């Protein structure tokens, strides 16, 4: 049971972690809590579904060809949709408010979040041949991942869980490489430490901010596809709860810190899974799992206000 719940928690946490990176990267650079990030995650899932629908809803998505060719195509479609919407959002809703008081972009973010939800709800089904998005939409089953599990030493591990964890590992490795080994990455670190000085040194701050939004969106899109494969359906509201949890994970791990977002996501997922099983009596079970998750968050913040992993990308305060 313990290992079963550990696997459940880690795979749920991997999803949180992938989304949380987007909160943390953007916060690290512009000090904005982008509450529309959950909707970027949702856009990624819808983008992948769109690619599937544009291919004509082929039945052979559930063959090896589907796994090797169509799934990557769907992921690219999801990433394009999410990154596109994120850049548009940054340009239209945040950049004009960059020098405004901090509350203004925050409210703007909430507005973007609601707008994106409603746009998908109202207009996705209007595209000819696309399903009505008022209710949940079935996500295509991909061979070898959807609904398949392997048994390892008495623990049922779903292939979709392995997919999510693998996606997290690949994305984290990519991020580490990008930030520490490329010029753009170093420009990001510099901007997060001191945007004014960075810009004096010839760094294009607007470009760095766009890269930050794009990176977060790409990871959120991967999470969106993983969500679709894992739960077999997506809906216009899926970003709300997931975004809230991912934001919690980012704070738990130390907002602004990329490794912290990943660790925070995993910890949050595992705490939720364990609380479902191991807290007995009236305050246990699935109904209280979120309460325990937030108890852990509060405890961590009381003793380590900077979050689990502190703040590697230094917070200018």
């Amino acid at each position, binding site marked *: *049971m313990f290992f*079963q*719940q550990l696997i*459940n*928690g880690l*795979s*749920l946490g991997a*999803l949180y972690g992938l989304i949380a990176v987007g909160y943390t990267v953007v916060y690290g650079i512009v000090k904005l809590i982008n509450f529309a990030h959950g909707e970027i995650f949702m856009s990624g899932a819808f983008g992948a579904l769109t690619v599937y629908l544009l291919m004509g809803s082929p039945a052979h998505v559930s063959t090896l060809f589907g796994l090797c060719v169509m799934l990557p195509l769907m992921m690219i479609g999801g990433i394009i949709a999410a990154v596109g919407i994120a850049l548009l959002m940054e340009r239209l809703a945040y950049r004009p408010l960059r020098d405004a008081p901090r509350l203004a972009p925050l409210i703007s973010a909430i507005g973007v979040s609601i707008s994106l939800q409603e746009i998908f709800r109202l207009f996705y089904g209007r595209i000819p041949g696309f399903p009505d998005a008022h*209710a*949940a939409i*079935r996500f295509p*089953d991909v061979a070898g991942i*959807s*609904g*398949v*599990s392997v*048994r390892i030493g008495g623990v*049922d591990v*779903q292939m*979709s869980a392995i997919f999510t964890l693998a996606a997290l590992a690949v994305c984290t490795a990519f991020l580490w490489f990008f930030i520490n080994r490329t010029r753009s990455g170093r420009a990001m670190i510099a901007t997060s430490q001191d945007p004014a000085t960075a810009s004096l040194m010839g760094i294009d701050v607007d470009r760095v901010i766009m890269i930050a939004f794009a990176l977060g969106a790409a990871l959120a899109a991967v999470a969106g596809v993983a*969500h679709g494969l*894992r*739960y*077999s*359906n997506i809906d216009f509201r*899926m970003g*709300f*709860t*997931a975004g809230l949890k991912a934001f919690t994970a980012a704070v738990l791990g130390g907002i602004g810190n990329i490794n912290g977002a990943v660790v925070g996501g995993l910890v949050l997922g595992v705490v*939720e*899974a364990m609380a*479902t*099983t191991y807290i007995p009596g009236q305050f246990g*079970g*699935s*109904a209280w*799992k*979120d309460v325990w998750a937030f108890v852990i968050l509060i405890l961590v913040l009381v003793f380590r206000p900077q979050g689990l992993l502190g703040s590697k990308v230094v917070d200018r305060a």
Partner: protein
Amino acid sequence: MGLGMRNSVDLAVKQANEQNLVPGWTFVLDAEDDQASADAGKNAATKLAADDEVIGVVGPLNSSVGQSVAPIYNSANIVLISPANTNPSLTKGSDLANPKRQWESYFRTCTTDDVQGPFAAKYAFGAGLTSAATIHDKKTYGQGLVEHFTEGFTADGGTITTAETINPDDKDFSAVISKVKATNPKFVYYGGEYPQAGPLSQQMKAAGLNVPLFGGDGIYDPKYISLAGATSTGDLATSVGAPAAQLPGAAAFVDAYKKAGYSEEYGAYGPYAYDAARAIIKAAAESLKNASSPREARTAEIKAVGQVSFDGTTGKVAFDQYGDAKTRILTVYKVENGTWVPEKTDDFQTGSGSSASASSSASPSASAAS
């Protein structure tokens, strides 16, 4: 659905006039559309209540509309019989442990939600599913369903292996499924609606918990099957009423409805609307006997409806002291080949419910069979 109800009432009215069931009086149907909205329903009700020629009203379809129009008819002393309101609080009040009749003039021919749980329990136990895990979504409907199910199931001798809840906003149920799986239930009883139940069923099967998910009418929806996917085959749901083809006395109604040539189907509630109209007409034979206008007969009509008892389309039509139908027909549906297939239709009698209503044993005009 509403048009099927209107046509069914129209049919009952036409038949009553043809057969001259109430000598000296002719029935006229005045149909109003409540647009499934409490506001529109209120307007229609106010209009009908002001009409001196109205003897009784059949409707509405939605429990929420019933909640807002019942007081209007009640204060005008007009009998209201709903063929489709399934929320128990309309007759018994919100506290089901201490039931209290809400409106003297309100009756219904359909079955209420609160018998779904015990009905499901009985069916499952009879089918050899002797142990269950329960999960609900903490909303009034889901929690009530699970509570009534648990009561009935343990009374029948079944075991509840574990009782869990989920949050309606959750997408990931893997932790609770692993917990349920460890207790080896023969099925999972879920109290809630299809947007959560569909994914729950899908995740159960994917996690290797290959037992049926059993729910109430909240999951009895084609959308449930599309969300749950191919692995939902064998999942079960109860719903009030029955497909007309399976009702014992429905053949005559179905024939007459077809002959009358209505362009809409009679739908799930048509037979219940027909019975409701017939109850009003049968009672009117009593109440209008010595009256000079329908308005004068209204109080007598309410009393007479409370005492009707005849063999209707949906079974015996009679009301208990709360105004609920004494016949409680429910159906278990099963997912087969991607659709809900009726599995078993039965008349469910709760031990306590039927014993307390002595008043309706005298049935005055039941002999006037058509």
